[in-house]
């Protein structure tokens, strides 16, 4: 297993730039999620790494060896990079065993023990070896595809939206099995996804791509608690963004005075809190009055849509036990600190903590 280092990679299709100056480092043995909305270039980046396409600029190195860029392009078949495409991409004309052993030397392909071992690695029964791909469920196909990619002992495994085609019940189980198999194999892996919950729950680090650029690379907690900007904040989870005025480390907002999770210069700022930081209680002194506009009930918890006296709309995420009804008057408390984004001159971003910085303590 090796690390992956992407340096200043750019790629355009015709006159449309798809990737622009992407830098990414994936440490050996770790699982990195490439997260971004549709069309942000994440699949293109994966294909460049795999060797199915060449970057226009920049270099890609696997374990210190440059495989693309700087005037060279190692063919995909010599890169030793396992690839798990969307929906598995199993060879329909081969059995499960034939698929799993495809990348092995000819002598090892007939080895039933090897097949059993590989299927076991992804949590599948050895009885499946003789089946055709179309006889498998979607989740089983994904696992076979992973076993096939891991079989030749690749230095890196790439997974392209591996769970997006599975229905919700299978997705969780398959995700667990795949993550376990990857860590059991000690594999360095990159998973492309547009599902933030999947990225946060599975990966060691998450790379957020937007418009062909890498916006933030951080571990899941840092990403959620200290997003680079408000767009990232809204992309990785629900966000309540409040206009505020910072003075002496405290922000005055429509939800009252909020502690700040990190230092911020005095002046106007926007303050991020997460809906789960909002607590509801009967109206009372010290609580911000609000009226319930609607409740989305999810079972384990619920989203309460509120309207403040000022007319501003905010959302609270509360446990599913006792819920207010639409039209009720409630009082709102904010637990923990808010994250300030100074409203500087056009686009001046906040100082962003990298993954090494201490995680701001919230709640």
């Amino acid at each position, binding site marked *: 297993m090796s690390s992956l280092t992407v340096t200043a990679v750019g790629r355009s*299709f015709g006159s449309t730039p*798809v990737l622009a100056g992407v830098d990414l480092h994936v440490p050996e043995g770790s699982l990195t999620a490439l997260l971004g*909305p*549709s*069309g942000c*270039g*994440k*699949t*293109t980046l994966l*294909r460049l790494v*795999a*060797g*199915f*396409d060449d970057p226009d600029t920049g270099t890609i190195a696997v374990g210190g060896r440059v495989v693309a860029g700087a005037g060279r392009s190692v*063919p*995909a*078949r*010599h*890169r*030793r*990079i*396992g*690839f798990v*495409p*969307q929906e598995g*991409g199993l*060879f*329909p*004309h081969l059995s499960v065993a034939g698929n799993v052993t*495809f*990348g092995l030397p000819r002598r090892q392909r007939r080895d039933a023990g090897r097949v059993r071992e590989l299927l076991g690695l992804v949590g599948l029964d050895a009885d499946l070896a003789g089946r055709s791909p179309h006889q498998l469920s979607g989740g089983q196909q994904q696992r076979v*595809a992973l076993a*096939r*990619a891991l*079989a*030749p002992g*690749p230095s890196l495994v790439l997974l392209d*939206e591996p769970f*997006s085609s599975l229905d919700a019940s299978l997705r969780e189980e398959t995700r667990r099995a795949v993550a376990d198999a990857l860590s059991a194999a000690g594999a360095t892996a990159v998973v492309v996804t*547009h599902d933030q919950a999947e990225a946060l729950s599975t990966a060691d680090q998450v790379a957020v791509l937007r418009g062909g650029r890498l916006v933030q690379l951080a571990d899941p907690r840092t990403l959620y608690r200290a997003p680079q900007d408000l767009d990232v904040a809204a992309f990785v989870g629900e966000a309540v963004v409040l206009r505020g005025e910072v003075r002496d480390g405290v922000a005055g907002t429509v939800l009252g005075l909020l502690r700040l999770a990190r230092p911020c210069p005095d002046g106007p700022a926007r303050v991020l809190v997460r809906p789960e930081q909002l607590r509801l209680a009967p109206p009372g002194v010290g609580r911000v009055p609000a009226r319930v506009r609607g409740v989305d009930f999810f079972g384990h918890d619920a989203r309460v849509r509120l309207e403040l006296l000022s007319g501003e709309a905010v959302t609270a995420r509360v446990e599913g036990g006792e819920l207010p009804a639409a039209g009720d008057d409630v009082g709102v408390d904010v637990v923990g600190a808010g994250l300030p984004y100074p409203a500087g001159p056009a686009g001046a971003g906040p100082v962003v903590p990298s993954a090494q910085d201490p995680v701001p303590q919230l709640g």
Partner: protein
Amino acid sequence: MTAPAVRAPLRRTPVTVALAVAVAALALLPLGYVLVSAGGVGWTGLRELVWRPRVGELLWNTVRLAGGTVLLSVVLGVGAAWLVERTALPGRRVWHVLLVAPLAVPAFVNGYAWISLLPGLDTYGGALLVVTLSYFPFVYLPVVAAFRGLDPALEETARGLGLSTWSVFRRVQLPQLRVAVLGGGLLVGLHVLAEFGALQMLRYATFTTAIYDQYRATFDGPGATALAGVLVLLCVVLLLAEVRLRGRHGYARTGAGVARAGRPLRLGRLTAPALAALAALVVLAVLVPLAALATWLVRGSSAALDTGALLQTTGTTLGLAAVAAAVTTAMALPTGWLAVRARGRVATLLERSTYLGSSVPAIVIALALVTFAIDVTPWLYQTVPVLLVAYAVLFLPRAVVTVRAAVEQSPRVHDEVAASLGASAPERLRRVTLPLLAPGIAAGAALVFLAVVTELTATLLLAPTGTSTLATAFWSASSALEYGAAAPYAVVMVLLSAPAAVLLSRDAWRGATP
């Protein structure tokens, strides 16, 4: 997520591109040769050769036959397709097979059948009748497939808005069928322009028969070349007209999923006339030729059928067809592959070259290859390879279309996964690509095989002396008015062509555009 428009750049597949370019060049060779030799005659010479009353007469004959056949075929094909696809007529599946069945009878066999029964058919009307009956399925098939692909919800919506059955047909269905009708009409037109056997049999003079007569009289001469040039020009006009009329895009159903089958329309009092019309069409197109064949077979068997010669000719034909199918399908692979995997101007150009090359009438291709072989490669003249080249040029599109469809159904991802697992390009071809494409390749090869079995024109001109196929043996017997001796060869050809007709009818029934 939506994958970006990733293409395998042409530079990543230099060998495939080189092969496809060679195939395209070969496909365009006859066309190019005709144009170059016509140019060699010079402008004044050309005008002298073309500006004659005889050419005007041929032009008039050819154009009115092509126009009449296309019109009649469209009426018959669309009408029959509507009855089979959209009404509650009894036995619709059986009618469907019967309406495709004429494709199993080669047009020159059809001509033989009619003229041997009614010797007075050597007129414009006779030619129009025979050629239409042979070629209307070329309109019927794509229109049936298009009807199957139409969303019945549109028709139901239109009916809900108060439109009559006729208005629904005219305002909703017909506009959506335009691409299929034009495509089918073009195919009929090209076939009529290229038709030689049936028209020679019916003694109806067109460019093809005139070229043949000229060739037989002077062997090789600027006269035949000039006529061929005019004929090629007609084909090009037809192709351009189709491109213009078809417009830029077809119609697609919006929304996901498979089109639901609509409720067929009840004809009520009109059921009996509709059935009678279909029955009449099938009797004329299928029953009459088969009955004529049966009659001559019975009458001819008294005149001692030469079984040995029949077997030998059948063997020669099957052998030639098998080799031609293998060669042509192999040639179609690079083109069909690039058309899908390296979509772009170059790939489209290479693909269209094979279509253009084969839309040149067989008589012109044969003539060009004869003169080319004599002028440039005399050692190849009168050999099987030249005949195989002619077959390949004529039937490449059948193989390209099926290979292309197969490649479209086997996504690129399999190739990429195999590469990421360390498989080299030849290994990927052997272990992934060919097994996945095998059914499509086999279907393409079968179509070429069956086309070669009934090929007459090019074989007449190019077969080495002493080599006779079913078609040429049939031809020489029937030209000598030995209808009885010709019948067995025709029967074998019909029997061999039947599977192709069944294949085509099934494809259309499933909704695949043939």
